[in-house]
């Protein structure tokens, strides 16, 4: 026989102003098996909890219903209180009289009636509750970081400095990411590479970090604390254990006209190459798609000139397996491609370039060694137009969001140009200036006031070439939309930041969700910004949305601290609200017939197979088995199971049925 206690909370006036809480408590006292029912002003307060604890002891309660706020808010509080009084925490249920009743209705008789019904349902449910114990899962204390830009570098260093192992996987031949391509950084104008490269070297030398470059994630299986990753090491065609990085090979390589990715297409590289002089590791790979030997069958000049004999033309992709306890995704972003701007002539006119290309022009390690020379004829441009929001905040182009970093880097670009070309004139077309951040607005004001950059509020309608000049047509909306035409020598587009190609595929491999722009989705926009919906997988940097370096680094350290917190526990405690396959006496063993449709329906790969064997080891029956570490308790398998052989602990068929019937039979 159940002995149920009902505790109705006023929540100050949040509930009691709308619901007649005393009447609810009185009505509940009359329900079958309810032996104690009270109301109180703040049930979650210390005296409120004491009320529950005392009642459990005095009335020998076997179940507790707290009629208060959302279980999301206080379920742990009340379960803990019950446990302290000796009642299994999972024998306590909450019904939500606040969000589900008082906050959404007026004070009427019906509102109180609804509150009584809500309590009635949970009383019936709790009678079918069973005591449950938390699930303990072991943790592999190694983290996998995917992407070696500044986010991945910072995350790896922070986790490694906590004493945990890190595997950092980078798809390019070198770590560094977009930050290594930048010239100077706002708002201090310090050199990007100068602050980044020491950290790149630190990664390579850290005893806790295993750096795997030129590699991609092939698959990820498992669950928080216990992932199994397969990493595809692409064939480098160079044995890095032998290579000294002397550079003889790329000096002799005859394929010299390959557009350099590092220089955003403004310079060229060879087929055997290191992306940039400060690369980590500073050893070359062969780009098979552009190598004479791989494409035409002969050449091998690099092999001839390689003194240590490190070239390996027969090297193949290799899959390495790793066991990791947590994953941090730091795959970064991309910028929109030329075909996005037919009206600005990008791709058509050589001197219409993206912000990233301007970074390379302004960089001391770039194709012009830091002099601003336009790509078409290498002349120093006398008039430069910068177009902000090129693609961003443009619903017509399908990008509604603000790319966030463009206002700042456009101001920086104009400033760098003015510093380098004293006689030059620069114009910035902008929609709004978004310079929120420490010293950010001051930076933009400096560009306008000290460096005399001409800011024009308005959009550019078209860019076309005429007599060797780029004619930029726009309007100044602060001058009543007066048309403006500028004869420019170069145009720089602050092109929109977009998600990386392949991010959707990666998200599916990782079982994490992503937004409509294919940026990875955080678990909660405010309170869980670095977590994903999949436990044990975290996010940092621009793979979640465009963001600047300080924000990326902050987020990276945040993700690292989440990983470190996870690794600091000896075992992982999980809520036992998971699916279980029923078991019965032999010879039936279970009503499960082993059709395994649940296995294909499970979004978390949590369903495996269990063989029941006799004494001689012969398989009698194969049943579905739910992996306790993987199951998230979503219930998809329960809906699927034709024989109703699967139940969610804490939300069993019986519990749900009695809850619904309590309402229908009333």
């Amino acid at each position: 026989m159940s002995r149920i206690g009902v505790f109705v909370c006023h929540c100050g006036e949040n509930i009691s102003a709308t619901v007649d809480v005393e009447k609810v408590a009185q009505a509940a006292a009359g329900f079958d098996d309810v032996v104690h029912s009270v109301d109180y002003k703040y049930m979650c307060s210390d005296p409120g909890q004491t009320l529950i604890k005392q009642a459990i002891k005095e009335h020998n309660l076997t179940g507790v219903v707290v009629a208060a706020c959302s279980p999301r808010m206080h379920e742990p509080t009340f379960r803990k209180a019950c446990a302290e009084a000796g009642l299994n925490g999972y024998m306590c249920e909450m019904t939500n009289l606040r969000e589900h009743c008082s906050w959404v209705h007026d004070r009427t008789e019906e509102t109180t009636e609804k509150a009584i019904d809500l309590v009635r349902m949970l009383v019936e449910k709790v009678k079918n509750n069973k005591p449950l114990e938390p699930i303990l899962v072991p943790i592999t204390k190694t983290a996998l970081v995917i992407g070696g830009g500044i986010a991945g570098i910072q995350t790896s260093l922070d986790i490694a400095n906590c004493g945990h192992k890190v595997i950092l996987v980078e798809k390019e031949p070198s770590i560094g990411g977009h930050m290594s391509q930048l010239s100077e950084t706002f708002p201090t104008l310090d050199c990007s590479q100068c602050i980044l490269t020491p950290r790149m070297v630190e990664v390579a030398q850290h005893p806790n970090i295993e750096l795997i470059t030129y590699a991609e994630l092939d698959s990820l299986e498992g669950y928080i604390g216990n992932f199994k990753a397969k990493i595809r090491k692409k064939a480098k065609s160079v044995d890095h254990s032998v290579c000294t990085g002397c550079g003889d090979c790329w000096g002799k390589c005859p394929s010299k006209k390959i557009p350099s990715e590092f220089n955003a297409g403004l310079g060229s590289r060879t087929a055997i190459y290191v992306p940039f002089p400060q690369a980590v590791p500073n050893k070359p790979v062969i780009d098979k798609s552009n190598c004479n030997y791989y494409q035409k069958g002969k050449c091998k000049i690099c092999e001839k000139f390689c003194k240590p004999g490190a070239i390996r033309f027969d090297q193949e992709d290799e899959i390495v397996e790793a066991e990791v306890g947590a994953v941090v995704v730091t795959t970064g972003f991309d910028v929109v491609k030329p075909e996005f701007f037919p009206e600005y002539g990008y791709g058509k006119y050589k001197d219409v370039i993206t912000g990233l290309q301007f970074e390379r022009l302004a960089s001391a390690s770039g194709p012009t060694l830091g002099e601003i020379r336009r790509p078409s004829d290498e002349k120093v441009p006398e008039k430069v137009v910068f177009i902000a929001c090129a693609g961003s905040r443009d619903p017509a182009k399908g990008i509604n969001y603000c790319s966030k970093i463009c206002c700042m880097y456009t101001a920086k670009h104009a400033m760098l140009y003015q510093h380098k070309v004293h006689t030059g004139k620069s114009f910035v077309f902008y929609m709004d200036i978004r310079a929120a951040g420490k010293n950010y607005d001051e930076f933009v004001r400096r560009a306008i006031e000290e460096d005399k950059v001409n800011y024009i509020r308005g959009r550019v309608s078209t860019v076309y070439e005429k007599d060797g000049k780029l004619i930029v047509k726009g309007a100044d909306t602060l001058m009543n939309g007066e048309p403006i035409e500028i004869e420019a020598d170069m145009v720089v587009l602050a092109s929109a930041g977009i998600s990386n190609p392949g991010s959707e595929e990666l998200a599916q491999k990782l079982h994490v969700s992503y937004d409509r722009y294919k940026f990875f989705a955080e678990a909660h926009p405010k309170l869980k910004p670095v977590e994903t919906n999949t436990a044990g997988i975290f996010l940092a940097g621009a793979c979640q949305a465009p963001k600047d370096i300080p924000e990326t680094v902050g987020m990276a350290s945040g993700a690292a601290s989440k990983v470190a917190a996870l690794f600091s526990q000896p075992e992982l405690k999980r809520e036992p609200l998971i699916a279980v396959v029923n078991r019965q006496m032999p010879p039936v063993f279970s009503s499960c017939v082993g059709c395994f449709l649940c296995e294909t329906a499970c979004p978390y790969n949590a369903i495996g197979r269990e063989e029941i064997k006799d004494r001689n080891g012969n398989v009698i029956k194969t049943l579905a088995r739910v992996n306790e570490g993987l199951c998230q308790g979503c219930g998809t398998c329960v809906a699927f199971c034709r024989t109703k052989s699967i139940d969610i602990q804490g939300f069993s068929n019986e519990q749900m049925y009695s809850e619904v019937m309590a309402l229908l039979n009333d």
Partner: protein
Amino acid sequence: MDNVKKRAAELLKSEAVKVVIGYTMGTNGKPRAAFIQNAEDVDSLIFNAQCVQNLAVYLSKAEIKQLGKPAIVAPLNVLRAIIQLASEMQIQENELIVLGVSPDGELIDFQNFSAIEKYLEDFNMEVDAKEKETLEKISSMSLEERWKFWNEELAECFKCYACRAACPMCYCHKCAVEQNKPQWIPVAAHRLGNLEWHIMRAMHLAGRCVNCDACHEACPKGINLNFLTKLMLNDAQEEFGYTGVTLKEGNLLSTFKTNDQENFIQ
């Protein structure tokens, strides 16, 4: 059919199988299932257009399983059921010998299940044109008309569960209607109970039904309960490009393809 008989006799003689499941003439001039355990009895095997019962239903029955390894006379509907059962892990290739039968009664040799799967590709599992017409008529009814139609159609049902016993896909040891903690589906053969049973049966066959009409053939009241599964099959083909049974794991309802239509989510 002679080839089939010859092969059946060989299999029994060599003890490669213990029982041959096939068709024989019943007492009332209608074919029935035969379970032949002696090579001398193979002459009683028959095959004609009236042999419509889906013999695959016996493969998962405990009484037949205990006889030992079976061979099964398998026209198209049985072949489809075998593949679907295999995809649901209910039969293994090495536990069964399939004696394929062409529509005119000739033996077809199948080396393995993949060969059956390949053979089936040539036979579209479509609802035939006349049935399609009836289904369209039902689909075009107003909600009220359809509700009335089904209530009347199913009123005759007295829940003998012959449809379940005849269906090769209803192999669960304990059917959901017999689950009583809680009792989701009412036991009584009243209007609501009938409706719930038949809707549940159709849903449990979604993406699994092999369109053999065994359920309809078995119904003592001649209820067109296969219309429900056929409507479902029609939807599966039109909305999700379902072409028929395959060996791959999972079924239409439990898996998704990236190009699946999602226009029903609004």
